[in-house]
């Protein structure tokens, strides 16, 4: 496939591996922000192509992992209501709430449907005027424009039975949160390529200046990741800290203006609770008052269950890059992708799930 195969080329990967080895003179800890990047790193065994001085830390950029447990519980409660069709991306269905998951609701007779795009829900809403259709709108800035367009279109088409249950998260505030964390280990970042396709790379300049840290906006194929690492290493070795754009075939400085305009129209910035990390100021989106009629949070009054997280799980420390899955006594024993205890095992893009799937217990040798 064009723009995929050539960025998985083995020869190019060897060249980059050699260049990284030559460029590296000191030990460095680099965090890839996105769960998709973590997945590529583990799937292609990229740590084996790096010198021992480079340690990759896996970041919090998996929205399925970091969606608050109270939001999952709310989704499960709404999905169990009479005359509701609850729509979601497939990977949210098996995320455990305090007592159950969305698959349990479906098994008990609830109408829970997996959709490819939030626009699919509009068709469902039009075909089922006597039902309330709720879409589980989670994700980073990459996913938010699709949800924004769906609710804008619902308003335009007077689909009053369409609702969004919104729990969006945004990347720059969580980078700030990680850098302000007293035990922070991160010295350079591979920035979130697809988030930046929407928002551009300019929001990251302020972070580089403030924390004196290099951020290289990076794609998701193995060649992208290796080149991103090379550029971070070159900056770290030379003591510079600015934004670079490795993913220039997709990302521009200012991003997608049309998508940003609709985000501004449909959403307002809010504080957000990140599973495993806690509340981070101004790190999320919620629906603006203009779209209150489509806000599932307002339309459904559900009783909040007491939150019940595993006491053994160390996913918060894993999301901060302080610990690895091997440091957890439950990893692969009590906690597996089929029975996840916490944030980083619940999604295939989570760090623990990637380690479990690709059998890698050690990243650095």
């Amino acid at each position, binding site marked *: 496939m064009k723009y995929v195969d050539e960025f998985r080329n083995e020869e190019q990967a060897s060249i980059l591996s050699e260049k990284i080895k030559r460029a590296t003179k000191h030990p460095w800890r680099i965090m890839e922000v996105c769960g998709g990047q973590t997945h590529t790193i583990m799937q292609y065994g990229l740590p084996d192509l790096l010198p021992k001085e480079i340690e990759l830390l896996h970041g919090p950029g998996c929205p399925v992992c970091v969606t608050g447990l109270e939001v999952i519980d709310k989704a499960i409660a709404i999905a169990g209501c009479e005359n509701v069709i609850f729509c979601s991306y497939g990977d949210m269905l098996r995320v455990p709430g305090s007592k159950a998951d969305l698959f349990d609701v479906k098994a008990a007779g609830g109408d829970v449907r997996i959709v490819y795009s939030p626009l699919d829900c*509009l068709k469902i809403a039009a075909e089922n005027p006597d039902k309330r259709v709720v879409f589980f709108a989670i994700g980073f800035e990459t996913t938010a*424009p699709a949800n924004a367009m769906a609710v804008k279109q619902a308003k335009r088409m007077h689909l009053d039975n369409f609702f969004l249950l919104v729990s969006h998260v945004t990347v720059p505030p969580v980078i700030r949160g990680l850098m302000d964390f007293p035990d922070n280990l991160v010295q350079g970042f591979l920035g979130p390529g697809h988030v930046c396709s929407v928002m551009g790379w300019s929001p990251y300049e302020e972070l580089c200046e403030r924390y004196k840290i290099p951020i290289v906006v990076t794609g*998701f194929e193995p060649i992208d990741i290796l080149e991103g690492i090379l550029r971070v290493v070159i900056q770290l070795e030379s003591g510079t800290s600015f934004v670079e754009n490795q993913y220039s075939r997709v990302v521009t400085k200012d991003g997608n203006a049309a998508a940003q305009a609709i985000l501004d129209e449909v959403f307002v910035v809010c504080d957000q609770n990140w599973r495993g990390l806690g509340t981070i100021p101004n790190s999320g989106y919620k629906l603006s008052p203009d779209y209150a009629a489509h806000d599932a949070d307002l339309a459904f009054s559900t009783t909040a269950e007491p939150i019940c997280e595993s006491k053994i799980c160390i996913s918060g420390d894993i999301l901060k890059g302080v610990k690895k899955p091997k440091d957890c006594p439950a990893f692969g024993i009590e906690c597996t992708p089929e029975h996840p205890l916490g944030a980083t095992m619940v999604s295939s893009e989570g760090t623990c799930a990637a380690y479990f799937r690709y059998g890698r217990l050690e990243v650095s040798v």
Partner: protein
Amino acid sequence: MCLAIPGMVESIFEKDGLKMSKINFGGIRRTACLEYTPEAKTGDYVLVHVGFALSVIDEEEALRTLSAISFTEKAAELSYAGDDQ
């Protein structure tokens, strides 16, 4: 979740007031919304995430990224060869 896949715009049409397209992902065809990439033309490659094209892929930049990897390697080899002498 932020998975996005490059595909080629095969046809463009309108549905319910939205600019839509049929996209070919290496033989698999899906519909995607072009509201965020109104400049996309038939034959362009776009990056699609949850049914929305988020950017038109810049071929020149893709080639530049790939050629820079090998080019600078050759330049580096020349310079190492120079060091040996």
